[in-house]
């Protein structure tokens, strides 16, 4: 059995267990109250779900049994038949058969086809009200095969006697007890007795629930996991405090060690001098020893004895110091181990809280279908990286932002079918949703292959709404700030999908609340990518701890691109700083927070973060540490103070504010005049993917391109290239033709199939110079064709030209 099927079966067993419990409980309730419509609905849903899920894991008999049960329940629901006791019995019998099949599946056994026929006949007879025949039939069937235990460990089954009560009823509930309890001792009226008879030897599994949940899967409330994570968070804070204290203890240990060594040295010197020396005063004191020379008999005075004692004590101290040293070494090791175990536990609990991105993407299948119909634009949805884990809170919080992005993509991004045909695009528009993990962050891309963001329309609408002076020259990336404004829409009319002007502002705010960021990359006529970066865990978060003035703050590490110490020339309150020769806007937090920064010098450190795709340097006075911590969000009273996403308490109990850079840079009072929203990360180096099976070619091309400020990734064949492409993307692909695993033509074909040739130029670099090869490459969508050996200048020029062409297209 494949791993996927095993995994699916595990899910099914878990799900079936719940629905069978519902069926069991519900059928007995229906028996008591045939008019309980809501319970009927619930039973119907359970049978329906088992039917569908069983079919999914190829348990066809189980599915058919559930289908048959569903038919009967539907007939009751539609009032075509009434739920007589006989029918309830037959349904319970059917449910037992489903249980049996599920049990078989959980043991890895094949289904038993006999059950279907038995259940069919039993239900049919009960539906028709021919109880005598039904009983005869079921008994006969039971005797022959199907009702006999069919599992291998049949001996473990208990059997219930005929007419045994099958329901535990609250004894205080006299009415229900009277209705639903049967007794061997007190025969019921004839008709009831007949109808109440159940197959004589119905197998009853001793611990059914256990068997049904024995697939290694149990379901626990996410609140419990959250509770565990919160406790772990508190442990993490205490551990941080312990580690802080350990540093102090280590320092003390060094001081004690140093002082101890000094003491030892001095005492040794003293002892060497005085332990055995015989002072003149002693030499002649004892007349009994007068005949002995100094070396012939040892003599001791008080000083000698004191020196000896000192030596002994010092040896003890030395031993104690050594033991202390060993203890601290072990203790430090244990704390280190504890640190590792806490990190491991955090990882494991985080994993338990994780939901695969594919589940999130799945929720949009129907949405895209509906939006496609409403907009009259054919759209297909492609997903990748569905196995990327997302924190449950992120999973819950991302639905709405993605929904807005998809609505925007369909409404504004994708062209109509006719328009797409006219400009040579495939008639069906594509929305790609992909997820991947990068370090401690999850990156989710929503990409469409539409016309890209229409900057001219944004500009026009901004002018119409009085947000922009008609004479003002604004860079395209600066126009993007308008689409994040509440109430701003470029749609001419409001419809089902868009035009209300609420959307991207929500996206940005929701992402900020999740400590995430949003970048937009767009190319005219090529499409748009909305890239969301989110932390993998929202409970315990790694933060950078810094100081502004006298106050401590933290920023989640996933929002930090880099930390730099500013050059002397940048120690001014300028709005831009240079970090490694890249100029970027800067925001002095002491000014933003209206706090007194260090008076002697300007804010010396820059925390580079990314706000709406643009790198921004936050100037702070001091970087203090980096640590794991819990972020406690504000309550409703402060929740709309968006400059912060909550508070964090240090190991020593100090309260730190968690800053939200997105709002600090763009929000509040500064929104009108200091917006730094950007479209593309212009400081990002263009990236080239070099695909060649020759190491030397890969190295040579990489070195050459890196020297010209390209970011280079290399793959040794087409398949590897596709993986890298999925993970990192590329602005240009430079590929060989002849390679193992997947050759260059196959790579071109796959890129074309994925629709990537529209956005990524592919330059073939091969030793095959024939026209036949060249034509084939161009037919498959290659942008250019270079022949090895190549001239450095020619390669660089070609790469530069095609990247530029694609960016400006």
């Amino acid at each position: 059995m494949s791993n996927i099927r095993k995994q699916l079966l595990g899910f099914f067993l878990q799900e079936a267990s719940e629905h069978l419990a519902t069926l069991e409980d519900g059928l007995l309730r229906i028996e008591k109250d045939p008019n309980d419509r809501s319970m009927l609905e619930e039973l119907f849903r359970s049978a329906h779900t088992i039917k569908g899920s069983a079919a999914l894991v190829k348990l066809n008999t189980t599915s058919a049994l559930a289908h048959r049960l569903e038919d009967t329940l539907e007939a009751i629901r539609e009032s075509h038949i009434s739920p007589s006791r006989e029918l309830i019995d037959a349904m319970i019998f059917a449910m037992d058969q489903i249980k049996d099949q599920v049990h078989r599946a959980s043991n890895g056994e094949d289904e038993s086809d006999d059950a279907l026929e038995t259940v069919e006949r039993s239900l049919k007879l009960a539906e028709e009200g021919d109880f005598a025949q039904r009983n005869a039939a079921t008994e006969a069937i039971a005797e022959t095969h199907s009702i006999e235990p069919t599992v291998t460990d049949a001996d473990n089954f208990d059997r219930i006697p005929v007419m045994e009560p099958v329901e535990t009823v609250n004894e205080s509930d006299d009415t229900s007890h009277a209705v639903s309890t049967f007794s061997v001792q007190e025969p019921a009226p004839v008709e009831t007795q007949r109808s109440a008879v159940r197959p004589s030897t119905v197998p009853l599994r001793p611990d059914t629930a256990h068997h049904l949940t024995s697939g290694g899967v149990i379901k626990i409330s996410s609140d419990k996991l959250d509770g565990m994570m919160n406790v772990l968070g508190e442990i993490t804070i205490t551990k941080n405090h312990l580690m802080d204290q350990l540093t102090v203890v280590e320092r003390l240990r060094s001081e004690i060690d140093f002082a101890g060594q000094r003491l030892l040295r001095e005492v040794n010197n003293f002892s060497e001098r005085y332990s055995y020396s015989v002072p003149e005063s002693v030499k002649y004191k004892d007349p009994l020893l007068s005949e002995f020379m100094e070396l012939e008999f040892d003599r001791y005075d008080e000083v000698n004895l004191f020196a000896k004692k000192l030596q002994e004590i010092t040896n003890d101290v030395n031993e104690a110091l050594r033991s202390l040293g060993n203890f601290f070494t072990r203790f430090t090791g244990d704390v280190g181990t504890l640190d590792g175990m806490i990190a491991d536990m955090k990882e494991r609990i985080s994993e338990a809280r994780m939901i695969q991105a594919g589940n999130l993407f799945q929720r949009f299948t129907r949405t895209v279908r509906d939006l496609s119909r409403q907009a009259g634009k054919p759209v297909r949805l492609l997903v990748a990286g569905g196995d990327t884990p997302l924190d449950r809170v992120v999973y819950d919080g991302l639905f709405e932002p993605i929904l807005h992005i998809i609505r925007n993509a369909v409404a504004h991004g994708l062209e109509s079918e006719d328009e797409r045909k006219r400009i040579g695009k495939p008639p069906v528009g594509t929305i790609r949703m992909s997820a991947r993990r990068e370090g401690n962050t999850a990156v989710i891309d929503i990409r469409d292959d539409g016309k890209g963001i229409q900057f001219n329309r944004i500009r026009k609408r901004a002018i119409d709404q009085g947000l922009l002076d008609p004479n003002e020259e604004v860079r395209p990336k600066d126009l993007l700030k308008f689409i994040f404004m509440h109430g701003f829409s470029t749609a001419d009319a409001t419809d089902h999908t868009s035009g209300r002007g609420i959307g991207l502002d929500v996206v940005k705010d929701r992402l900020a609340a999740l400590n995430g960021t949003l970048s937009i990359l767009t190319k005219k006529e090529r499409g748009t990518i909305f890239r969301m970066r989110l932390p993998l865990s929202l409970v315990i978060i790694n933060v950078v701890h810094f100081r502004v003035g006298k106050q401590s703050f933290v920023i989640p590490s996933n929002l930090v691109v880099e930390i730099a110490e500013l050059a002397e020339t940048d120690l001014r309150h300028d709005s831009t700083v240079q970090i490694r020769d890249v100029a970027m806007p800067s925001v002095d937090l002491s000014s933003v927070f209206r706090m007194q920064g260090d008076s002697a010098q300007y804010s010396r450190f820059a925390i580079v973060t990314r706000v709406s795709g643009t790198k921004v340097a936050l100037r702070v006075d001091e970087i203090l540490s980096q640590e794991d911590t819990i972020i406690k969000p504000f309550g409703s009273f402060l929740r709309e103070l968006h400059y912060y996403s909550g508070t964090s308490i240090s190991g020593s109990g100090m309260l730190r504010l968690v800053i939200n850079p997105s709002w600090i840079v763009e929000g509040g009072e500064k929104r009108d005049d200091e917006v730094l929203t950007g479209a593309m990360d212009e400081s990002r180096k263009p990236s080239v993917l070099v695909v060649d099976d020759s190491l030397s070619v890969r190295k040579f091309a990489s070195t050459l391109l890196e020297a010209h400020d390209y970011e280079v990734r290399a793959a040794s064949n087409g398949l590897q290239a596709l993986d890298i492409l999925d993970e990192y993307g590329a602005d240009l692909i430079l590929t060989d033709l002849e390679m193992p695993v997947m050759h260059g033509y196959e790579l071109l074909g796959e890129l074309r199939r994925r629709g990537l040739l529209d956005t990524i130029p592919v330059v073939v670099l091969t030793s095959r110079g024939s026209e036949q090869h060249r034509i084939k490459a161009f037919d498959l969508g290659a942008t250019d064709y270079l022949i090895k050996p190549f001239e450095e200048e020619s390669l660089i020029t070609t790469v530069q030209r095609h990247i530029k062409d694609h960016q400006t297209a």
Partner: protein
Amino acid sequence: MSTFDNTTVGYRGETASNDTRNAGLGISQSEADRHLDLACCCFSIADMEYHLRIEYMLEIADFTKVTYLPLAPEYVLGLANLRGEVMPVIDLACMKDIKRQPRNPAAYRLIVADAGGERIAFLAEGMPKLSSTASGEEIDVISFVKNHKVRIG
């Protein structure tokens, strides 16, 4: 800055009626009388008196270190951390534009109230009194949070 006047929801500006308080609580008069022994917490700040109904009260704490909350309205004095619970500290004097006389921190107390599961602390001068008699202006904590919550942007 939000003001604090008699028409604002969350600020009653009148002494709460004991009858109203007990209505619908399902307690007998004698029980109600016992409750009335501690009907409210009365406190003052900048010579103005206020009271909170006892059911909103969680504790009276010594004035602890309050962490400044930049960009918050002035009436939010900062954040207090009481045994791991972080809560905003409200200066009612500031809401009324009344200047407080500088005092030794030891002269202040924090009245910690429960606003529907959320904690909020009010700054008080001197030791607040738990009393059966309401005096000063009533702070309805739930409405207070609803009406005066911080809105930036």
